[in-house]
């Protein structure tokens, strides 16, 4: 049971007070806005029967007031969906954003607006629902064999989200201008010019709340263990599926009507719980109430700061929500049963005694892939294997990309091995722990604040970002004894912050956005020979240094006591490894963007091959990661010629598919 205990005793009435305070603050700001628009004497008329000829009264009635209503109703809907998801999946981290529901809706809406815009006419909600339902079905299918264990569900949700968002990004990249309208309407801006959206939300919210109330008993019993619930004559599976269905319907409606607004569905219930709403029935009431206050207050603040209405509230909630989430994570500690991390790295089921021939094999394979990536390409006439002088002409374009992909893949994979060994967590990787996102975030900030830095300086900046993210995630991890759930969630939070910054930039109309978007998708396009040399140099340095850390990597996962007994200074070795991981991730992120899955995939494949000793594992994973990334870059260059798909996106697709296949095969925990 994955329920999370609280570090603070509950106090009755506190969640209600908190929700009331948030809503009151939103109302106060609303009244301030109303007063700037209209003298108080006209309020009653404006809010009851506005004069159609008086624009100020009409604005109060059809813009300000419905906007407040949409903030409250939308927030409540997100909070309710969050509570239902969390209870049904017995997972405090579940919400539409982390379960891929929004990513599915987004992809479906983008695809529809490009291929069949007529569908959006009446059926925006249906399109969003189709995408959401498909996403959640995929996630449940993936985690079914592990009996919907919280970690499995969230992990599947993360992977499917990344996967679907890679699809969305690809469509956006190819149709950037064509989608600007969709960015605006899906950016999560709450401005209104009629009561339509608010009135559409009311029955949906009411029905969902009714369904929640009807399911109160069976869902509450889920807090018991499953056998207990079944003993009371209730099918837990049916209740859970019904709750999930209601939550998905509600989330898809919000996504279609307002846009995918992240974190509200997570933050509201979490804050309510933290404030003392521990029983399900309390959370069912106060979670949505706090969420309503949060969204409405954020939206009123946005109106306060940005009068022109250009800043979408959804971007702000993500920015505010992610740090809030990190803070919340620090306060939540896992229940006793959950604290023990899984350590499959240490399981002895399948270990090869002679790993070195496999390392040599990986090297040869990499050589073949590199050769093909350099020589085989497409021209308008078709495929062409170039040799000799013709190849010489193409090499200036192809060689830096291949080299950069190779170096980046190597670094990501080795960083993945180090992180997995350091945390004893098989799901650790620079991408999933948010280390790459930390690097990306630092780079985005650098691009905006300090434009014109060169490659080495950028590597330094990215390294600092990666290190900060790594330290944040690990300090959280330490509190929860490296529980996968906490660390992965912290990682997602960072990834979401990076995404929110990107959305904010998209809306700023900055011409550098397109370049930045291309880079964040992991394009090797702009890599110069010098950049490639730096990337490969870093990878080579890693290949030389990491084997020296082999002893640490063998001993660290065994725990502090063993380490000390064997004479390894834990703190110093750990610091050295952390610095190294940050540098590796930074170097790779600079080249292939923050998401790729190679850092997860390559170490995993190597472990499945039975290569468990640190040094051969690092080298084999590095070579495999390099090969995967080179392959991804090559595929990206030829698959849509003359258009190009960024290597990072291709790697996300390939890696995501591999990961989904892997989860399918995994035995129940």
């Amino acid at each position: 049971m994955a329920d999370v205990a609280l570090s603070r005793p509950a106090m009755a009435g506190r969640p209600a007070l908190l929700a009331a305070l948030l809503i009151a603050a939103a109302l106060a700001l609303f009244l301030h806005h109303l007063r700037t628009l209209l003298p108080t004497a006209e309020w009653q008329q404006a809010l009851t029967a506005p004069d159609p000829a008086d624009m100020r009264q009409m604005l109060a009635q059809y813009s300000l007031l419905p906007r407040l209503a949409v903030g409250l109703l939308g927030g409540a809907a997100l909070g309710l969906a969050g509570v239902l998801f969390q209870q049904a999946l017995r997972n405090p981290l579940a919400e539409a954003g982390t379960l891929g529901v929004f990513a599915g809706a987004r992809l479906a809406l983008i695809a529809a607006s490009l291929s069949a815009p007529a569908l959006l006419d009446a059926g925006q909600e249906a399109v969003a629902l189709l995408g959401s339902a498909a996403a959640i079905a995929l996630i449940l299918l993936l985690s079914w064999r592990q009996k919907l264990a919280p970690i499995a569900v969230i992990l599947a949700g993360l992977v499917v989200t990344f996967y679907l968002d890679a699809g969305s990004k690809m469509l956006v990249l190819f149709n950037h201008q064509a989608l600007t309208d969709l960015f605006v309407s899906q950016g999560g801006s709450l401005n209104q010019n009629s009561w339509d959206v608010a009135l559409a939300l009311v029955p949906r919210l009411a029905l969902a709340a009714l369904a929640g109330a009807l399911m109160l008993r069976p869902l509450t019993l889920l807090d018991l263990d499953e056998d207990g619930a079944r003993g009371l004559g209730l099918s837990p599976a049916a209740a859970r599926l019904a709750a999930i269905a209601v939550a998905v319907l509600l989330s898809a409606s919000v996504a279609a009507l307002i846009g995918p607004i992240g974190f509200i569905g997570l933050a509201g219930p979490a804050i309510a719980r933290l404030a003392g709403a521990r029983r399900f029935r309390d959370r069912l009431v106060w979670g949505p109430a706090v969420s309503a206050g949060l969204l409405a207050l954020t939206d009123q603040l946005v109106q306060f700061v940005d009068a022109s209405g250009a800043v979408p509230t959804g971007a702000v909630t993500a920015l505010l929500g992610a740090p809030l989430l990190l803070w919340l994570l620090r306060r939540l500690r896992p229940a006793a049963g959950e604290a023990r991390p899984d350590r499959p790295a240490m399981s002895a089921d399948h270990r090869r005694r002679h790993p070195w021939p496999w390392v040599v094999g990986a090297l040869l394979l990499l050589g073949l892939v590199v050769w093909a990536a350099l020589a085989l390409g497409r021209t308008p006439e078709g495929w062409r294997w170039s040799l000799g002088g013709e190849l010489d002409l193409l090499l200036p374009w192809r060689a830096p990309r291949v080299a950069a992909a190779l170096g980046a893949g190597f670094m990501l994979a080795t960083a993945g091995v180090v992180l997995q060994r350091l945390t004893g967590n098989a799901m650790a990787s620079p991408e999933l722990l948010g280390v790459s996102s930390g690097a990306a975030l630092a780079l985005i900030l650098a691009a905006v604040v300090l434009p014109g830095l060169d490659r080495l300086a950028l590597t330094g900046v990215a390294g600092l970002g990666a290190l900060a993210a790594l330290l944040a995630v690990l300090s959280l991890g330490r509190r929860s004894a490296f529980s996968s759930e906490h660390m992965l969630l912290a990682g997602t939070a960072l990834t979401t912050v990076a995404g929110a910054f990107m959305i904010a930039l998209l809306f700023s109309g900055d011409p550098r956005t397109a370049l930045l978007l291309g880079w964040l998708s992991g394009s090797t396009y702009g890599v110069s020979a010098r950049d490639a040399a730096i990337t490969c140099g870093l990878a080579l340095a890693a290949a030389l240094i990491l084997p020296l850390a082999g002893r640490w990597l063998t001993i660290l996962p065994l725990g502090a006591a063993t380490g000390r007994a064997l004479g390894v200074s834990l703190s110093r070795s750990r610091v050295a490894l952390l610095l190294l991981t940050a540098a590796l991730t930074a170097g790779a992120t600079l080249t292939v963007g923050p998401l790729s899955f190679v850092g997860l995939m390559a170490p995993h494949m190597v472990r499945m091959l039975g290569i468990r000793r640190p040094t051969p594992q690092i080298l084999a994973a590095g070579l495999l990661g390099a090969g995967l990334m080179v392959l991804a870059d090559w595929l990206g260059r030829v698959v849509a010629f003359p258009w190009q798909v960024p290597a990072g996106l291709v790697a996300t697709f390939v890696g995501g598919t591999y990961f989904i296949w892997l989860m399918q095969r995994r035995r129940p925990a």
Partner: protein
Amino acid sequence: MLTRRALLGGISLALAGPAVARAQDSEPIARRVACLDLLLTETLLTLGVTPAAVGNIPLYDRLVAEPALPDGVPDLGPLQEPNLELLQQLRPDLILAPSWAEVGQADLERIAPVAWLPTFSTRKPALDHARDLLLRAAALTGRDAEAKAWSDRADAALAEARRVIEPWTERPVYVVRFNEDGRHAAIFGGSGMIGDVLSRLGLRNAWTGRTNVWGTVSIGIEQLAGNAEAQLIHFNRGAETERAMRQLAASPLWAALPAVRQGRVIEMPVVYPNGGVASATRFAQQLARVLPAHGSENG
């Protein structure tokens, strides 16, 4: 250099055919011009130059459309990541690219000389800037006469439009393109091409709020209540605009906007808002056509 040409010639000849033949007669003037920006492509086509290759043709067809891009021009893929291998095979003798992309695409210089042209100006009025761009592109491609002719034609068209519109200039105008969600619109402010043409025609822009470097910003429909006197000109982009108008028809706030209530909503065919001299001329001519038909005469 010779071997490079000989080798790649085989690959690219079939594609390049007639243009290669032309390239031989006058050396200093660029004949095979590749173009990596929508405004620059519009400018080339205005001068009567058919580009040797263009980035993102579907986007040009969708957003700019006029002057039409002839069939058979090779597409180089995304504007921010044009396919360099393909571009190399096409052997342009000049590449036109926006100056803001210089940092990321400096490698283009290895294929052919690149003219990094500023596609927007923060100091000059947009139309002056577009005219400079036209003249520079003309100098690079040996089309000075065409540029002069177009520049004169634009002046004449603007003067004529100004004369026709003169009785209808009292009311300020909003120029917008509605988002299909019926909640938002792109509005065109003072610093872009649309805003510049308005002021040259003696029209006041009703939107005085913040805009980006291209003079555009996304707003909520309720922002259109800011100026009660304004006329509302909106671009029709076909099905999208129809959807937007259906959504708006259901909004009491929209119905209450003074421009809507008093019948001052005017529709016109879409013009590329970041466009050059040709787009500006077309916008002025369209204004001269629609305002007298719909607008309210000065009192």
